[in-house]
C-alpha cells in the first residue's frame, strides 16, 4: 500500500462483504465461522486488524443493512436499541436519558465525539472488554442481547453474555441485532462513574454503575455493576443483597461498599494497580448508590 503511515501496518488481506440483509449477513457469518468478523463502527475492529491482532478471512460490513439503527422506548416494552445505533445518537436521545440516565452518562464518556459518531453500543458490548463503559449500566438495567443465527433467534441476558476478556457467547453464524432492556420500575435512579486518567479518550480504571429503586426511604431494588475490575463486567450481588429491602444509612452504605469487593478480582496493568482498583471499588460503589438513591427520590441529576 502506498502512503506514509505512523507505524507499520500488518493488516491481513481479507474478503470484504457488505450484505444488504440480516439473513445475508448470517449466511456469510455461518459460512466463514470463526474466520469472519462483523464490521459496524470499526473503532475497535479496525485497530486490532491494523495491528495484526485480528486477522479475519471475511469482514462482514453490516452498515448497509436497513432497520438496525433504531432506538425506541415505551413504558411496557422498555428500551430497544438496534445494532447500528451509534453512541452519539444514543447520547442525544432525551427519552433514553430520561429513563436510563446512568446509561447515557456512560455512553457520553466513551472516547470522543469522532469515535461516538462511528461506534455502536452493540459494538461496545460485542467487543466485550472488561472495561466497556456502557456495560455496567446495561447490567443494572437487566439488558439482554437478541441474536439471530442459522438455528433461529435467541435472547441472552447480559449477565450471561460475557465469558472472559474480549469473549462472549455469540456462536459462529450469529449476529447481534438488538439490545433490549425493560422499563425501569417507578422511583428509580441510576448513576455511573468512570474513573480514568483524563476526562475523555481514556479507558476506565474502574467503572461503577448503580440503579436504585425506592419507596420513600426503603430500597425496593438495588443493582450494582462493576467494570474494569474483573475478567468481565460483573454485578456486585453481595452488595445488592445487603441493601435490598433496607433503609439506606451511612453504615449500611459503608458495608455495601466493602461487600462490592467480593465481585472484584482486578489485575494490575499500565492504567492502575490491583490495589488501587480494590481501594476505589468501595468508594465509588458508595457514591453511585447514594447518587442513584437521590435521583430515585426525584432530586436533580
Amino acid at each position, binding site marked *: *500500500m*502506498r*502512503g*506514509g*503511515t*505512523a*507505524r507499520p*501496518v500488518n*493488516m491481513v*488481506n*481479507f*474478503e*470484504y462483504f*457488505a450484505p444488504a440483509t440480516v439473513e445475508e449477513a448470517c449466511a456469510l457469518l455461518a459460512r466463514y465461522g470463526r474466520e469472519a468478523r462483523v*464490521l459496524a*463502527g*470499526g*473503532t475497535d475492529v*479496525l*485497530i486490532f486488524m*491494523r495491528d495484526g491482532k485480528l486477522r479475519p478471512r471475511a*469482514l462482514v*460490513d453490516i*452498515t448497509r443493512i436497513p432497520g438496525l439503527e433504531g432506538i425506541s422506548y415505551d413504558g411496557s416494552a422498555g428500551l430497544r436499541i438496534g445494532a447500528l445505533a451509534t453512541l*452519539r445518537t444514543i447520547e442525544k436521545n432525551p427519552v433514553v436519558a430520561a429513563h436510563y440516565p446512568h446509561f447515557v452518562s456512560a455512553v457520553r464518556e466513551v*472516547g*470522543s*465525539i*469522532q*469515535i461516538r*459518531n*462511528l461506534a455502536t453500543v452493540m459494538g461496545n458490548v460485542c467487543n466485550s472488554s472488561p472495561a466497556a463503559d456502557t456495560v455496567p449500566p446495561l447490567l443494572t438495567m437487566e439488558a439482554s442481547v437478541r441474536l439471530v443465527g442459522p438455528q433461529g433467534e435467541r435472547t441472552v441476558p447480559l449477565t450471561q453474555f460475557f465469558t472472559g476478556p474480549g469473549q462472549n457467547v455469540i456462536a459462529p453464524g450469529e449476529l447481534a441485532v438488538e439490545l433490549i432492556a425493560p422499563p425501569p420500575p417507578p422511583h428509580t435512579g441510576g448513576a455511573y462513574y468512570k474513573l480514568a486518567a483524563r*476526562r*475523555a*479518550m481514556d479507558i476506565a480504571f474502574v467503572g461503577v454503575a448503580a440503579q436504585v429503586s425506592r419507596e420513600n426511604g426503603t430500597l425496593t431494588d438495588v443493582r450494582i455493576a462493576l467494570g474494569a475490575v474483573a475478567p468481565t463486567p460483573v454485578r456486585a450481588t453481595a452488595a445488592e443483597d445487603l441493601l435490598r429491602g433496607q433503609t439506606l444509612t451511612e453504615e449500611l452504605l459503608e458495608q455495601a461498599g466493602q461487600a462490592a469487593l467480593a465481585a472484584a478480582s482486578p489485575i494490575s496493568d499500565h492504567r492502575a494497580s490491583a490495589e488501587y482498583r480494590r481501594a476505589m471499588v468501595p468508594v465509588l460503589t458508595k457514591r453511585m448508590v447514594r447518587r442513584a438513591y437521590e435521583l430515585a427520590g426525584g432530586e436533580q441529576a
Partner: protein
Amino acid sequence: MKQRIHLRVNGEDYELEVDPRRRLLDVLRDDLGLTGTKEGCGTGDCGACSVLLDGKLINSCLKLAVSADGADILTIEGLAQGGTLHPLQEAFMEKGGLQCGICTPGMIMAAKALLDENPHPTVEEIRLALAGNLCRCTGYTKIIESVQAAAEKMA
C-alpha cells in the same frame, strides 16, 4: 480484490477503485491529493484525521474507504469558498491558534462540527467538543480563543 466506490468530497464526485484495506484517510490523501487531513496516530486517539462524513465528525483513520461508499465528505480543503477563508480559518490565523499546524485541520473540522450544532458555545462546551483532538504545541488556550472568535464572527 479492489472495489469500486463513489465518494463525494468537498462537493466533487469521484469514482475510485480501492483495496478494501485502505482507509478513507488513505484515499483522501493518496488518491485525491487532499493532504490537509493528517495521520497522527492511526488509532482514533489524536483527531488529526478528523473529517465530516454525511455531516458527522469522524476519525477518517477508522473508516474503511469501501465502507464509506456513497458518502458525502467534507475536509479542511472544502472550507474555503472560492478563495475566501472560512471564519474558523481566519480566526485561527488572527488569534494564533496554531504552531506547527499538524493538529489544525482536525481542530478546525471539530470546531466546525461544534459551531454547526451550537453557535454560541461556552468554554467548557468547546473543550468537550475538542476532547478528541490533541495538540502538542499550543497548550490549547489560543485554540479555544480561536473557536470563540470564529463563533463571534459567525453569529
